[in-house]
């Protein structure tokens, strides 16, 4: 077993793909760094925090991008974002499925405008792939989680695979606490943070497939088939979720309302026991 959480972006790529099959586009040797960080005397990375390339998964070709959470929290700047957009556009031209190994706090503030625009270009490129029936799969198991614009982009994709350690949200808990006060969100309450943003709540909400923190488990959960997008059905589903759960105080109330037994114990369950506990009881 190899922990996804403890691995670097490149270790995840190597562990996920068929052995030795990864070829990187614009690799670190190309020394493509962010000029905007240099201007602010910030350390740069030769890959700007994301590796993109092609490889094989069970002998099927895939395109793959992996954000490195250890570099600026995987935040999206101009170069970083353009690498992901270029990869998605290549997937459209070549009609090859895409694996997005995301770990990102969102837009990189040092180049905030460029990062925000880049995220919207990533979103447009993902939507074009959905329209063309080319699948995009997100794997989210890193320490940073996936937040901000990349959290929105994640929800545009065909499939989201998460570990329980991973988090997915829009505003980070710290940002909500700073802006709205500790009564709105106590970011120091780790159990609360995971009940809101963690992999288990996202699986119960029907947004993610939960797997153990193991690269092999992530690999086994990948399905390279496009998921047809029915916006009318999704609209009804999200409307029902909003009506039923939007006013509830805590995820525990939602889990109880769904009929999950002993909701307070859900955070303690291992992956198999969790799947057994929520079967037929997701939002």
């Amino acid at each position, binding site marked *: 077993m190899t922990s996804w959480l403890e691995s670097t972006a490149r270790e995840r790529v190597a562990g996920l793909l068929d052995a030795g099959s990864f070829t990187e586009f614009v690799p670190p040797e190309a020394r493509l760094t962010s000029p905007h960080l240099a201007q602010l005397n910030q350390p740069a990375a030769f890959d700007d925090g994301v590796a993109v390339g092609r490889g094989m998964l069970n002998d099927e070709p895939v395109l793959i991008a992996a954000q490195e959470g250890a570099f600026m929290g995987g935040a999206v700047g101009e170069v970083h974002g353009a690498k992901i957009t270029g990869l998605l556009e*290549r997937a459209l031209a070549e009609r090859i499925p895409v694996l997005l190994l995301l770990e990102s706090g969102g837009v990189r503030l040092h180049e905030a405008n460029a990062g925000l625009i880049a995220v919207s270009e990533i979103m447009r490129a993902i939507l074009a792939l*959905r329209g063309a029936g080319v699948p995009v799969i997100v794997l989210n198991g890193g320490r940073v989680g996936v937040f901000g614009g990349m959290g929105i982009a994640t929800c545009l994709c065909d499939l989201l695979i998460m570990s329980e350690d991973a988090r997915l949200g829009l505003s980070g808990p710290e940002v909500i606490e700073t802006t709205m006060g500790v009564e709105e969100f106590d970011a120091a309450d780790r159990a609360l943070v995971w009940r809101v943003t963690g992999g288990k709540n996202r699986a119960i909400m029907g947004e993610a497939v939960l797997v153990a923190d193991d690269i092999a488990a992530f690999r086994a959960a990948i399905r390279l088939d496009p998921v047809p997008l029915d916006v009318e059905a999704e609209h009804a589903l999200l409307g029902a979720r909003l009506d039923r759960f939007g006013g509830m105080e805590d995820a525990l109330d939602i889990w109880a309302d769904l009929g999950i037994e002993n909701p307070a114990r859900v955070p303690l369950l291992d992956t198999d026991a969790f799947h057994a506990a929520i079967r037929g009881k997701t939002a």
Partner: protein
Amino acid sequence: MKIHDLLPQLFPHGHDIAFDGEYFAGSAGDVSVIGTCDRAAIGAALSHRMAGEVLRICRDHPGRPILLLVDTLGQKMSRRDETICLNAYIAHLAKCLDHARGRGHKTIGLVYGEAVSAGFLSSSMLADACYALPEAEVKVMNLPAMSRVTKIPLERLEELSRTSAVFAPGVANYIAMGAVRGIWEGDLAACLKAALAEDPGPDTRRALGEQRGGRTLARRVSADVRGDAA
């Protein structure tokens, strides 16, 4: 500009746009309008409502152009909204706008007030073309807050923002970077008419940003990765 000053200028022949708090929608001639006002925070309920209107327009008025008039301080900061996955609601709005685009609806965004972060991402930035009024405010974060978070002295950020478009707030920066196609001034009804007549084609923002000198790497880097470097 206030929405009640803006609408008569955009639609001098009248409109049937109805308001409900921070949300409004309706039509003016053969243009459908969806928007928010009073620096609305975009939460799950508001984005779901906007998405519903997009789908209704697709059903009831096939092919009709959609004008997005969004004034937003950004996403709603709410533990409850985050619990039910606010990002899925905003992503759903994006999918609905793309659905409309795919069915031949032209989509145009106009930033008339504020456009901040995910509020901007989930609206005008998804349109075929985004425009702004000269007094509009577009940003991720103001410079003092950015200075606190990045620990870079405010003076340095202010100095750099005079020559770089990449991080400081302002419509001019978003024009230079290609995300805002142009400014609407003077006869706003004529601006709208001209925008409706234009075919913006696919996502041209990287090329515009390069031509305008505000975003010089994005087009080239994405082309390098695509493998069609030019």
